[in-house]
């Protein structure tokens, strides 16, 4: 049976070049970077070199890169750290309704501790309106966090504008770039963000590694304790092999970004056209301001988990925003925030393309999907 992986927004395989770069650090170069002996000094030198390489790719300085265990930890350090480091008397925080839980949940935790939280709405495409942000910013605002691109529907936010407005109001701006780093061009001399989160395993690096970019002069308070690593903001022995792998993954992703993007946009648009040509299948997210590899559709009268399982039986790996697949009682908060009704949210299907995706994969999905959808619809009690 054909095997088609279309869940690259969930995770990606480690590239061979990345794996090869990591192996020595899991075996002979196993030193702890905090040790004073030769093995330790070698590990220290190599992770600092990796930090420099990542910084160079993003037009940042090495000391602005803090290694973390991944995107969620970077989000937590940015959000709780910004609050802990703030000298403002105000207690106002701003985020959007479509953030990843790695951002939403820290903010909700702070709200329960007495901070005032504004959650900005989005339009039907999942876009935040900069005018809405401008209205809520005040001298009390400590931090604004809005993701660069959404993990479910792929919508790309006007970060430049949102960050500029935030800075003008004297607050810090954080963006979760887990889905966009290495996929969209990022130049941190151009993009006026103070904090940015990224993850290794979304860009063909290993799981368990990511980083937080912290612009020079951005004050963060410590949120975990137990060591001086990463400026005491992420105490604990560094994930040396992960860091080495991450640096290689970022370099490769940036080098291939333009070409990969062009190829994926062609395949993405072919898949979108094919799926939305089926009766009552509609696109979620923005038609143009969209990650190159993201396809998200709602299939009427059909539930997402059933679709996933039936596609899986044909060798196709995808995901959904239905409640069943989120492990929660409600379907995706992102789709509901965009104004979809419960049926459309339960019937959503996300297909995310990546390096391994070929035109034959897309053709196979378009060949198999209509029969699966029809089969499930014949079982459905819902009428239009």
């Amino acid at each position, binding site marked *: 049976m054909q095997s088609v992986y279309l869940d690259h927004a969930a995770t990606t395989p480690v590239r061979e070049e990345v794996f090869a770069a990591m192996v020595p650090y899991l075996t002979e170069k196993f030193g702890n970077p905090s040790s004073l002996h030769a093995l330790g000094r070698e590990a220290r030198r190599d992770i600092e070199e990796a930090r420099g390489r990542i910084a160079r790719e993003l037009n940042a300085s090495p000391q602005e890169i803090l290694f973390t265990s991944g995107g969620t930890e970077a989000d937590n350090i940015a959000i709780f750290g910004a609050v802990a480091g703030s000298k403002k008397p105000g207690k106002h925080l701003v985020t959007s309704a479509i953030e990843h839980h790695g951002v939403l949940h820290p903010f909700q935790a702070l709200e329960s501790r007495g901070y005032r939280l504004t959650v900005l709405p989005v339009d039907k495409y999942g876009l935040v309106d900069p005018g809405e942000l401008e209205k809520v910013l005040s001298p009390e605002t400590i931090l604004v966090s809005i993701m660069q691109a959404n993990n479910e529907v792929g919508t790309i936010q006007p970060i430049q504008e949102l960050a500029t407005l935030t800075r003008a109001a004297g607050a810090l701006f954080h963006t979760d770039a887990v889905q966009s780093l290495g996929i969209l061009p990022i130049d941190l001399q151009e993009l006026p963000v103070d904090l940015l989160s990224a993850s290794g395993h979304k860009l063909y690096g290993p799981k368990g590694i990511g980083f937080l970019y912290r612009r020079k002069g951005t004050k963060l308070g410590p949120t975990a304790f137990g060591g001086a690593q990463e400026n005491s903001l992420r105490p604990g022995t560094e994930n040396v092999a992960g860091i080495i792998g991450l640096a290689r993954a970022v370099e490769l992703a940036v080098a291939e970004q333009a070409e990969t993007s062009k190829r994926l946009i062609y395949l993405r648009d072919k898949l979108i056209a094919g799926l939305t040509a089926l009766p009552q299948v509609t696109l979620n997210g923005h038609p143009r301001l969209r990650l190159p590899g993201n396809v998200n559709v709602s299939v009427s*009268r*059909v*539930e*997402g*988990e*059933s679709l996933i*399982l*039936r596609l899986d*039986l044909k060798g196709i790996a995808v995901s959904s925003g*239905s*409640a*069943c697949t989120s*492990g929660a*009682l*409600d*379907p995706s908060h992102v789709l509901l925030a965009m104004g979809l*009704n*419960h*049926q459309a949210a*339960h019937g959503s299907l996300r297909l995310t393309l990546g390096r391994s995706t070929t035109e034959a994969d897309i053709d196979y999905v378009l060949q198999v999907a209509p029969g699966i959808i029809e089969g499930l619809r*014949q*079982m*459905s*009690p*819902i009428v239009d």
Partner: protein
Amino acid sequence: MYSEKVMDHFQNPRNVGVLPDADGVGEVGNMRCGDIMRLYIKIGKDETIEDIKFQTFGCGAAIATSSMITEIVKGMSLAEAEKVSNRQVAEELDGLPPVKMHCSNLAADALKAAIANYRENRGASS
């Protein structure tokens, strides 16, 4: 995460469809949770379930439990069929993941609703 039996009933659901001359129809679930089941029953002599069909919008567990209950109660007397519980349906499928036990394990409730509907219909016509 699903047992082989669940996957079998999900892939090859038994008794899917509508009974145009059903004696009772029961529907449970709601769109908020994302599971809606509808059962149709045809009652034969001695109050036995002569035929049963289902339509379900929902996850793998919702479809499998719907299919399973049609197999369990086909040919049963109403008195026996009424005693079938959601838990029993799940057990016949070699269990369901814990998260599915309350949200997608509603087939026995749908059957009870269909039987109640049959009794109402009969009461109204006699």
